[in-house]
């Protein structure tokens, strides 16, 4: 095993102390003189035409500066999805429209001298609506629902898109002949799974400040995961060349996909440009719940044919995804429910994925950690449990036999990518079988499985598990770059377009540079995510940063290393081939002749053949090596009340070589708790008119420290040869397991299976009642 000096070490997160002392600044912490405060007016109706907007109630209000709405803002169709160009999401959004499509859709924006005035004024705008029939159910919307999207909405890539049928996206791939195989199977398991609307709940609400530099250029400080996409989208909507716009991402208070959406930046820019004043828009928590983005709910019918020997011979997935009022990520999240799920059991020869995304008059879906894979694994993870129980197979052995392994591939990689054909790849690193064994050992699986152990009065224990994979960036699409220069004291500036959302990517990218250059981490000064100062990066999504941005940093540092060694060779009058970097310096093979990096830097800047030692590099992945995970839940279920408590949760993950094990564990732990909370209690609820009824932390309950189970996280190393120092991604994968693992554990405890999430006390109670009724009637 290679001995690293920074990789794999518990370095201090470079912005940690700044954040812990409240020094690090988030978007809403920035101020400016003469600031305009912005507030939005939202639709109270799910589907309506705006007949008239009456602004007269605002006339006598002091401090109201301007109101923007459909009649005075250019109508430019775009997607808010914050993806690469051309976007796979349809162009179906405009800044303000004369039609509203969900409760929380925006109608107008007020600019005022204070936030209070802006908010009060936004409430006073009188809108005359002509009601349209709404549609909330995605299946009904596809069948014969009223058209939700704009008449002129269109796709910008070749993709199935039929807004007149509320079809926001459709994906179909087939391998082999699944129908024929299902027909001849020993038995077929066919079940319908349904996941719910969920909110990201990043602690920092969405915020943006649009201001100007000394030359009058637009500078947008924003809590975004995608600064470069934000620049592109803002420039297009405001008809400015991208060179006239600078996007700066300061510290950001969590994203989880929700801040991939570019939906506020153009509004702040609009007001700032029109009035030549800085403009700030900060959403309240209720606005974030009602009007930002969500996890797309999905209904999946999964059919599996099983042969005499107990193996799965064919598998089909029929998915209907609710994208809400706009098609943000409608195609790609849907695709990922297949592309990140089907390759896992790669020996199944006959497969089909058929998915449709439906427009409805409910809040808008978006990117959310797991990105469709979470929804897909809810189905696959239970289906495998059902089959192995029915055939009496050991589920651990089943997974170990059938999961994809190093040196293997799946036809799905090539057939299905991000809304289009994918990129074929052969797995180079996979320690999933070891993850399964180590996770099972940590939970003491065999001592607990099928035992129905008592856990106090009326409470029964159960255990369940699930397995998943994800990806590491989008191959041949995601591009990242890095630039570095050497300073005279032997420190380095590292400039990366990559976006640290709190994940610690600034730190791990610095570690990669420090490792290549064999210098202490403190010498790497990181500047990230500023479209003026840092080179391009597609952004922080698709689990791309460690792998894609990390590789760019590695290449950049390697190129700089060569230049440093060349200068050292000239200084020592020695062939650079015999020199290497070690402990903040350069030395020859036996260490007799050496120079410090600082000496080399000072010489190159001041003394001899003066030059700034610097380098830059870009990276695009040819493949997207998946991380793998095995997750185990131990629950106890109250058979009287239906209350489920997760008491222990084990995750064993193969993310390649962890660059920073503690931060990698933190990614897993955060995703697991989000996932458990999603499995047991999180769900956005709507009334009959489509209004969100639980738009606050009071009513939308997320787990706190008092709720969490004992978490065990095991990093099972592998070495991904294409990754920086062997690393793969880890940001999303761990949210995929809790839903199926907990569902399976509930079955293990009390014999009821839940096909609809979340597993609230009421749902479990009803399932238990149903089971008791069936048993009383002498049924199975």
């Amino acid at each position, binding site marked *: 095993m290679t001995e690293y000096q920074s990789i794999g070490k*518990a370095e*201090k*997160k470079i*912005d*940690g*102390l*700044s*954040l*812990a*002392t*409240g*020094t*690090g*600044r*988030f978007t*809403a*912490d920035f101020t400016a003189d003469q600031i305009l405060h912005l507030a939005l007016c939202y639709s109270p109706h799910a589907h309506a035409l705006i007949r008239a907007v009456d602004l007269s109630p605002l006339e006598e209000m002091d401090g109201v500066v301007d109101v923007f709405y459909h009649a005075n803002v250019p109508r430019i169709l775009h997607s808010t999805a914050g993806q690469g160009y051309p976007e796979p999401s349809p162009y179906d959004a405009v800044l303000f429209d004369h039609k509203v499509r969900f409760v929380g859709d925006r109608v107008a924006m007020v600019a005022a001298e204070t936030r*209070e005035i802006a908010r009060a004024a936004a409430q006073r705008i009188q809108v005359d609506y002509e009601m349209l029939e709404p549609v909330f159910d995605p299946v009904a919307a596809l069948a014969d629902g009223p058209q939700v999207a704009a008449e002129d909405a269109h796709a910008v890539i070749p993709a199935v898109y039929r807004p007149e049928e509320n079809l926001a996206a459709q994906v179909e791939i087939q391998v082999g002949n699944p129908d024929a195989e299902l027909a001849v199977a020993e038995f077929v398991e066919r079940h319908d799974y349904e996941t719910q609307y969920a909110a*990201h*709940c*990043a*602690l*920092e*609400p969405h915020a943006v400040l649009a201001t100007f530099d000394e030359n009058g250029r637009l500078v947008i400080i924003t809590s975004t995961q995608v600064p470069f996409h934000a620049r592109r989208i803002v420039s297009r909507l405001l008809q400015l060349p991208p060179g006239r716009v600078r996007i700066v991402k300061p*510290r*950001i*208070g*969590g994203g*989880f996909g929700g801040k991939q959406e570019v939906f506020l930046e153009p509004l702040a820019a609009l007001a700032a440009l029109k009035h030549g004043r800085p403009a700030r828009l900060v959403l*309240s*928590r209720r606005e974030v719940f009602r009007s930002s983005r969500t996890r797309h709910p999905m209904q999946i019918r999964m059919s599996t044919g099983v042969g005499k020997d107990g193996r799965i011979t064919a598998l089909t997935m029929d998915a209907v995804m609710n994208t809400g009022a706009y098609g943000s990520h409608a195609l790609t999240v849907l695709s990922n429910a297949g592309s990140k799920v089907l390759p896992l059991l790669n020996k199944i020869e006959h497969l089909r994925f058929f998915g449709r995304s439906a427009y409805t008059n409910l809040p808008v879906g978006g990117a959310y950690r797991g990105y469709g894979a979470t929804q897909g694994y809810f189905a696959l993870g239970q289906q495998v449990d059902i089959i192995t129980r029915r055939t009496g197979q050991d589920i651990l052995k089943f997974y170990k036999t059938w999961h994809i392994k190093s040196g293997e591939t799946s036809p799905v990689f090539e057939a299905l990518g991000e809304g289009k054909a994918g990129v074929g790849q052969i797995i180079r690193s996979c320690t999933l079988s070891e993850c399964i064994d180590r996770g099972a050992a940590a939970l003491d699986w065999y001592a607990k499985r099928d035992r129905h152990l008592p856990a106090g009065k009326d409470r029964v224990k159960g255990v369940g598990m699930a397995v998943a994979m994800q990806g590491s960036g989008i191959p041949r699409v995601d591009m990242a770059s890095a630039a570095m220069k050497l300073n005279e004291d032997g420190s380095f500036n590292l400039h990366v377009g990559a976006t640290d*959302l*709190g*994940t*610690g990517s600034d730190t791990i990218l610095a570690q990669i540079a420090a490792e290549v250059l064999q210098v202490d981490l403190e010498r790497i000064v990181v500047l990230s995510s500023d479209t003026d100062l840092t080179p391009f990066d597609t952004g922080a999504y698709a689990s791309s940063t460690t792998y894609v941005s990390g590789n760019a940093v590695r290449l950049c540092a390697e190129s700089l290393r060569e230049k440093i060694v060349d200068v050292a060779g000239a200084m020592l009058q020695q062939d650079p081939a015999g020199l290497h970097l070690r402990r903040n310096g350069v030395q020859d093979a036996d260490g007799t002749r050496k120079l410090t990096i600082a000496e080399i830097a000072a010489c190159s800047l001041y003394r001899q053949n003066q030059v700034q030692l610097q380098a830059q590099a870009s990276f695009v992945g040819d493949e997207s090596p998946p991380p793998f995970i095995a997750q185990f839940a131990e629950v106890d279920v109250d058979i009287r009340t239906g209350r489920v408590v997760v008491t222990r949760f084990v995750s064993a993950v193969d993310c390649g070589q962890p660059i*920073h094990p*503690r*931060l990698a*564990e*933190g990614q*897993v*732990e*955060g*995703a*697991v*708790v*989000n996932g458990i909370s999603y499995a047991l209690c999180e769900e956005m609820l709507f009334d009959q008119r489509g209004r969100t009824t639980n738009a*606050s*932390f*009071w009513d939308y309950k*997320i*787990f*706190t*420290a*008092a709720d*969490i189970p004992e*978490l065990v996280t095991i990093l099972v190393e592998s070495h991904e040869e294409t990754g920086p120092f062997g690393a793969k991604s880890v940001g999303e994968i761990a949210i995929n397991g809790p839903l199926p693992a907990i569902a399976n554990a509930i079955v293990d405890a009390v014999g009821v299976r839940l096909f609809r999430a979340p597993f609230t006390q009421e749902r479990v109670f009803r399932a238990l009642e149903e089971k008791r009724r069936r048993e009383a009637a002498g049924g199975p």
Partner: protein
Amino acid sequence: MEGTFRINGRHELLEFSERATLLQVLRDNGHQEVKEGCAEGQCGSCLVLLDGRLVNSCQVFAAAAVNREITTVQGLGTIHAPHAIQEALVEVGAVQCGFCTPGMVMAAYYLLRHHPDPSEKEIRRALDGNLCRCTGYTKIIEGIRLAARRMRQA
């Protein structure tokens, strides 16, 4: 309205509107270290000490805090002179996005002042009003245990 607040040991004469919360007044006057995650008393990002009691500053009218002693996270420790709790949280990897961290530090400080040797259960209970979406809380609890140990030894 106008009033004097004693913030992190310094007297500050501030103007504010009658209905302003303490959180708004702090944030509007350079104390952006106090975060606003919900403004509804549900997330703990805005915790400060008011005369030594832990309060969600979004739930206190500024007018009610006049002439009283307010401690924000910067009053406990700064980037150049951090508090043991802040250091410990960084060391164990409990700071991800860090938006919840100032509030977590305040809750932890309050806990450790009254219970220098808390059990894990007591720590969890003390953090029940603080939401964190990034960390899964495990490392935050670990960091507080580490800080408690160090503070007891100091």
